[in-house]
């Protein structure tokens, strides 16, 4: 707290001594460096989580058990989910927030730079602990099990029947939670206090708006997750009975507490995507964003509604009819503000001078494929239908459409859009095109057939399946390996940019409008920007 803005009073202008080497990264309080750390970390986790997914897909390529035993398979589904949610998608958004929010609101840095450093450096430790438990399971003597209860860690699977490594998992989740809360607090404090003079809330770029709302969601629900894992811990070791029916507790309570966190969490992973896409589409349509204010209100309504829909994840658990109907209607209501957003994106493009550079391609793929994922979500919201779809591959298809071809695609769009600003080099066009088209085709080969096997009754989280699902699963696995390999192309693109190999980027390579402040600083963005705040008209 004390060191927050001391920097502004220092005279580092006359003697520019940016730290370098390992110290630069370890002790960094610079929002750009920390943003870069977050982005590389999340990409590394994306590859790790992807590797775990490929183990799943290798096992499911053919019926029967070939590659891993079912116990290890369960560990793969669990840790894949946890790594992707908490290690890949969330830190990627925090990285983008770190890089872009100060640049977009004309601030010299984040408001709490030291806390920023801390919130990043907790993460590698948190994930070393979690991934360490998998390595022990895979290679360790005696093969102790890694967490194997699914990423939703329902009690009593994670309490009474949880493996010893569940305690490592609990510690790891606590650390991720602390990191996320600190990151979110930093965003709110920055947006509330460091906006350039003249930038009113309703003049903020939508990426900043969506992140501000996301940050409030994080502050509201990450502590509830911390509470849930704390209850697990005391149930496991200190004789409490929160989730233990024998002692008067209730395992269903766990699901309510978890999904009270879990559903807002789903929107934490998609609201910043809305912001990214709302930043990119107007630039490449050469028209201002259609319905700016309605976008803000739609985002806020989605965030508010996210608190009253959690039980749609647990329709089959048993609820009074009134409760079921309430959660069903509330869930369906969310499609209204979401529909407003999709309508606005389309209206922005309507009669615009569209061009299809790489960021725009990813953003368009996002709009179309996210809408597909949203529609299957609407199907799942219908309670009687959900009794049929529950825990089938249809659900897996649904949430991968919104998280992979939704959230991940938007992050890729953001990376291609802002890489020129970050690195000073245009991302390699040929590699980028191959990356995009491979990803687009493979992601659909990977996830679209899951709808069919799900509707036909293939359950999720099993290492084996009935013979009639073989053909689809074979092609799903081909899609998975193709998609996984395609992401290595992005690794090449990013490394080339970091090595400054490629066409030099001008200050404003995409001809973005002047109000987008991030394009008014040189490329690559210098170590310190907006030491004097810009004036907003």
């Amino acid at each position, binding site marked *: 707290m004390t060191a927050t803005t001391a920097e502004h009073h220092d005279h580092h202008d006359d003697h520019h001594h940016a730290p370098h080497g390992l110290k630069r990264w370890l002790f960094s309080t610079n929002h750009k460096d920390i943003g870069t750390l977050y982005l590389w970390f999340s990409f590394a986790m994306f590859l790790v989580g992807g590797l775990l997914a490929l183990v799943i897909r290798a096992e499911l390529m053919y019926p029967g058990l070939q590659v891993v035993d079912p116990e290890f398979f369960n560990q793969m589904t669990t840790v894949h989910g946890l790594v992707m949610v908490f290690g890949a998608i969330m830190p990627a958004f925090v990285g983008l927030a770190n890089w872009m929010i100060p640049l977009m609101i004309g601030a010299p840095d984040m408001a709490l730079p030291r806390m920023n450093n801390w919130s990043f450096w907790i993460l590698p430790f948190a994930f070393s602990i979690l991934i360490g438990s998998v390595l022990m399971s895979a290679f360790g003597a005696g093969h102790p099990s890694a967490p194997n209860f699914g990423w939703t860690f329902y009690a009593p699977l994670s309490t009474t029947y949880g493996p010893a490594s569940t305690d490592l998992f609990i510690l790891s989740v606590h650390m991720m939670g602390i990191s996320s809360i600190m990151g979110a607090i930093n965003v709110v404090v920055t947006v509330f206090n460091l906006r350039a003079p003249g930038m009113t809330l309703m003049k903020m770029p939508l990426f900043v708006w969506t992140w501000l709302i996301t940050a409030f969601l994080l502050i509201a629900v990450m502590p509830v997750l911390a509470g849930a894992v704390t209850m697990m811990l005391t149930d496991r070791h200190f004789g409490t009975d929160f989730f233990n029916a024998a002692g008067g507790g209730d395992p269903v309570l766990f699901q309510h*507490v978890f999904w009270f966190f879990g559903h807002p969490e789903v929107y934490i992973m998609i609201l910043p995507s809305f912001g990214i896409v709302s930043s990119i589409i107007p630039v490449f349509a050469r028209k201002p964003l259609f319905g700016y204010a309605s976008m803000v209100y739609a985002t806020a309504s989605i965030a508010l509604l996210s608190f009253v829909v959690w039980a749609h994840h647990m329709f089959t658990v048993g609820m009074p009819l009134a409760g079921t109907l309430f959660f069903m209607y509330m869930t369906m209501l969310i499609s209204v503000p979401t529909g407003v957003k999709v309508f606005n994106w389309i209206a922005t493009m309507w009669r615009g001078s569209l061009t299809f550079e790489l960021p725009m391609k990813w953003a368009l793929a996002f709009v179309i494929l996210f809408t597909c994922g949203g529609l299957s979500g609407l199907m799942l919201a219908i309670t009687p239908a959900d009794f049929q779809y529950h825990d089938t591959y249809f659900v897996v298809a649904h949430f991968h459409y919104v998280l992979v071809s939704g959230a991940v695609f938007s992050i890729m769009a953001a990376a291609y859009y802002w890489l020129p600003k970050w690195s000073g080099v245009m991302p390699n066009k040929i590699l980028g095109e191959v990356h995009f088209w491979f990803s687009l085709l493979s992601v659909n080969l990977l996830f679209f057939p899951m709808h069919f096997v799900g509707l036909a009754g293939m359950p999720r989280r099993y290492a084996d399946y009935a013979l009639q699902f073989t053909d689809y699963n074979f092609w799903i696995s081909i899609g998975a390996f193709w998609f996984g390999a395609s992401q290595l192309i992005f690794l090449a693109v990013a490394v080339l940019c970091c090595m400054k190999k490629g066409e030099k980027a001008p200050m404003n390579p995409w001809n973005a409008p002047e109000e987008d402040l991030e394009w008014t600083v040189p490329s690559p963005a210098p170590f310190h920007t907006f030491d004097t705040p810009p004036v907003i008209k």
Partner: protein
Amino acid sequence: MAEQPNLEDRISGTLKKLLIASVLMFGFGFALVPLYDVICDVTGLNGKTNSSAAAESKEVDASRTVRVQFVTQTNADMPWEFRPEVRSVELHPGEIKLVQFFAKNEAADTVIGQAIPSVTPGVAASYLKKTQCFCFNQQTLAGGKSMDMPVIFYLDPAIPKHITELTLSYTLYNVTEREQQKSKDVAVHRGSQF
């Protein structure tokens, strides 16, 4: 930033508010526990019934009968045979019934059991009143011994007309280890008087 001399104060002010909000939300996570119980009581969610003796009924509604079925199960690691003496009874709302449940410890050692009741449909749960139940307390059986465990209950005459049949289910849990652990803890607290 000369025009904002109090920037640092504003930042720490926002920071404090947000930190307090995080701590409050951590507390809210725990507040969900009693809140959940209240909601279960009000709505009959999960078929929770009264866990201590209810007052006896006064009037009997002889104009209709309701069928009450009994279901029993033992949880993992519970070495008891456990079954109702009758599968179902028919009774008028308000009428008091006694039903016996048979339990036999098939293990060699003493086992402590705790039965957890649940009523289906959930809305009927709050109308099923037990004046006496083996589920109010833990039950102990020495190895190889058996016993009959009584439940005395009636249906509140206010029970909705459309409910003509309901199921009372008991799940029996083995709580021996947990009880031994507790008495050990007590022994430690009392300075090893035992």
